[in-house]
């Protein structure tokens, strides 16, 4: 082949060094392409006779889709088209009559790209190369290979930019065109189309995705910038200065003695850590997802509705209101963290503990959480306040901490930081989890909230009843028992009012 295939093998080695981030996906794609080109099990390539000439070395879009469906674990045609379009966008095969690199599942003709132009060769062609190419195109038979509008615009732009060296570019283009003319007609057709497809990848039609674009996080890591800036046509390029973002990758160095000791220390700590059995871990993951699947809007329709789908914001209004719904209260029962996470949960928990005169633990825990968010200049004062309130001898809200934590905290308070109470807080958290929290969940206060037994006032009854009659869709958060209670009480009130009214009328009649 004209451009040389041997280059491809050495370039894969270079690829590994230079483009480690894209290497794997390119290797996978080229693996598939190689299979597609296999003589026995690949896509059948043929020469098609058209009106005046032959169209060499082509296959149809449908051929590609069918092959992908048959040879890869792909579910359906949509996925095959997606994968095929991706490969076309990278330039591994291309439509022979279009600059736009997508895959169509029809009779459109496609051709394979020569390995010389594959992405694994790390091409970053310069504008000088593109100028030579466009210039060369204008020298060829205009009827066959006329420039598209965007190409003509690019050429004009490049002529202005390279005005000084245009003569050189023109000479190169002439030399190339001469060589091309000498080629066999069929070979020329194929090579021209492959060259054009290469430029369609690196200088895409405006509006098309440029698959050669690399994430700036990765591009600033790339090694050996000079190696990638090779010319397609063997032109000497100006030495480019390093981009300010480029940092040469550090050489992989042998660890120093100190680093080794650190590694060993870390390794020892790792070895000593307790590891939970996989079965226990798997069980805990499974039960967590099961427990929360009712609360996952992607798995279960939320109650009353998902505001994004129904355009009804009731769900968010309920979350913001002071009265927690049943589903929300049920969640508090999943674990102490759920109660502590929810502001209304914290409120209810605190209220319950206050009723039992045992709220100092929770108040301490909340105070320490709040301390951690304070600006650093307020920390020392706050630490002192918390110490005085909860831990100092004779503290008004004395909490019970184990002697080890108490000792540590006493020390920490002398040099106060955000984490002065960390040990004490951990101890208190464990206490709350095993004691206060379980009492809260068993309490009648919590159970009533859970069953949504609301104590309605007379006005509330009327309000809810009216709301129910006038806006039936918005009162759907009532459960059956509450609904029955509301209706019953409303009837009782109306019945009594009627009775009273009749009685008054009777009295008046008598009088």
């Amino acid at each position, binding site marked *: 082949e004209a451009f040389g295939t041997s280059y491809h093998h050495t370039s894969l080695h270079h690829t590994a060094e230079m483009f480690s*981030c894209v*290497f794997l996906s390119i290797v996978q794609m080229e693996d598939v392409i190689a299979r597609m080109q296999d003589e026995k099990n690949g896509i059948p390539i043929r020469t098609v006779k058209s009106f005046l000439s032959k169209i060499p070395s082509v296959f149809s879009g449908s051929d590609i889709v069918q092959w992908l469906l048959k040879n890869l674990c792909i579910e359906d045609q949509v*996925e095959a088209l997606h994968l095929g379009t991706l490969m076309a966008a990278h330039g591994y095969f291309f439509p022979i009559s279009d600059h736009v690199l997508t895959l169509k599942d029809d009779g459109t003709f496609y051709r394979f790209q020569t390995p010389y132009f594959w992405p694994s060769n790390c091409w970053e062609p310069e504008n000088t190369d593109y100028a030579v190419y466009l210039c060369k195109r204008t020298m060829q038979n205009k009827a066959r290979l006329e420039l598209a509008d965007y190409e003509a615009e690019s050429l004009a732009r490049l002529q202005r930019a390279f005005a000084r060296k245009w003569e050189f570019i023109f000479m190169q283009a002439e030399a190339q065109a001469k060589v091309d003319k000498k080629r066999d007609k069929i070979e020329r057709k194929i090579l021209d189309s492959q060259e054009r497809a290469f430029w369609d990848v690196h200088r895409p039609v405006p509006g098309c995705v440029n698959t050669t674009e690399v994430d700036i996080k990765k591009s600033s890591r790339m090694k050996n910038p000079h190696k990638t800036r090779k010319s397609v046509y063997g032109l000497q390029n100006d030495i480019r200065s390093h981009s300010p973002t480029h940092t040469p990758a550090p050489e992989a160095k042998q660890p120093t003695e100190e680093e080794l000791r650190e590694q060993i220390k870390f390794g020892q700590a790792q070895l000593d850590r307790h590891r939970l059995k996989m079965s226990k871990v798997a069980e805990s993951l*499974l039960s967590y997802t099961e427990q929360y699947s009712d609360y*996952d809007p992607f798995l279960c329709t939320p109650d009353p509705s998902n505001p994004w789908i129904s355009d009804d914001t009731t769900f968010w209004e309920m979350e913001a209101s002071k009265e927690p719904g049943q589903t929300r209260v049920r969640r508090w029962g999943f674990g102490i963290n759920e109660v502590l996470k929810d502001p209304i949960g914290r409120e209810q928990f605190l209220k319950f503990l206050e009723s039992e005169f045992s709220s100092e633990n929770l108040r301490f825990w909340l105070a320490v959480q709040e301390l951690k968010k304070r600006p650093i200049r307020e920390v020392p004062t706050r630490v002192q306040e918390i110490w005085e309130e909860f831990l100092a001898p004779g503290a008004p809200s004395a909490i019970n901490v184990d002697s080890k934590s108490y000792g540590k905290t006493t020390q920490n308070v002398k040099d106060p930081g955000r984490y002065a109470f960390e040990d004490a807080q951990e101890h208190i958290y464990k206490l709350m989890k095993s004691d206060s929290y379980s009492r809260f969940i068993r309490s009648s206060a919590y159970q009533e909230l859970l069953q949504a037994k609301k104590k309605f006032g007379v006005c509330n009854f009327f309000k809810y009843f009216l709301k129910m009659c006038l806006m039936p869709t918005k009162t759907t958060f009532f459960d059956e028992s509450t609904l029955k209670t509301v209706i019953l009480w409303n009837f009782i009130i109306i019945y009594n009012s009627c009775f009273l009214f009749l009685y008054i009328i009777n009295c008046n009649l008598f009088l």
Partner: protein
Amino acid sequence: MGEMEQLRKEAESLKDEITAARKAVQDLTLQDHVAGTAVVGRVQLKTRKTLRGHLSKIYAVHWGDSKLCVSASQDGKLIVWDSYTTNKVHAIPLKSSWVMTCSYAPSGNMVACGGLDNMCSIYNLKGKDGNVKVMRELAAHTGYLSCCRFLNDNEIITSSGDCTCVLWDIETGSQKTVFAGHLGDCMSLGVAPDFNTFISGACDFTAKLWDIRDGQCRQTFGGHESDINAIGFFPNGNAVITGSDDASCKLYDLRSDQELITYQDSGIMCGVTSLAPSLSGRLILAGYDDFNCNIWDSLKAERVGVLSGHDNRVSCIGVTPDGMACCTGSWDSFLKIWN
């Protein structure tokens, strides 16, 4: 040199012992355990809103609450959206257009961003006169800022191309703790639900768990064959999900100290750019270089859905705190809300 040899041997043998210790608790794999559970049914999410306004590639998006999110784009703008109404609440022009990350403070009072300028800029959204101004510029990193996450209005954690992560005190603008240990650029970070630890993924193909309080690396997880671009906690705080250029995502458990499962498919050949778990953790949504987002059943490791609609790479993804919707940001300059 005898001592160096000894040390090297000791380090190697420790590595082997750790591998053995991890194997010792593999009484059952995750696949075996969930063999009896059914795969989650096909999940079909639709685009509910498209947020238009950016003029160039979107690199990052982060939810503040159930409706507000902030996005960063190469057009040099940070936009705060009320995504429910699709209104732009703030459009903040940036000094440097090479922005790579953005974050919304849990309080809703601030946003932060950073990128090739090696700095993390903090913006106050609730300024007195209503204008959004730079509040602090946190500068000390010697590499690009790949990710940032607020702990509260006073503290923020950043990850950088200089291979370190840093905990900053915003008010004083100083570095409180430097988390060093990665051997490659840190690409992404995630804070634990209890705010006591955080995880980082890097170009040395590993993920590390750090203790925020004492700055120590508690655990390291390997197994990926290329850069880890995205990382996040499983909602229960006991497991970590990573996404890599090797086209796979992995689930690591903190308590058993090892990889539980890998999410990959022979039909996927592109790197993972971003990921987010659903509220229950049963679904993992991952954005890829091939313009799509795949939805995985996290326990069965099967693909149960695809989000396609973007015309270029999906660079970032996030699920709202209430789990109602997910947002994808793309190089095609659009943000899409799906559920």
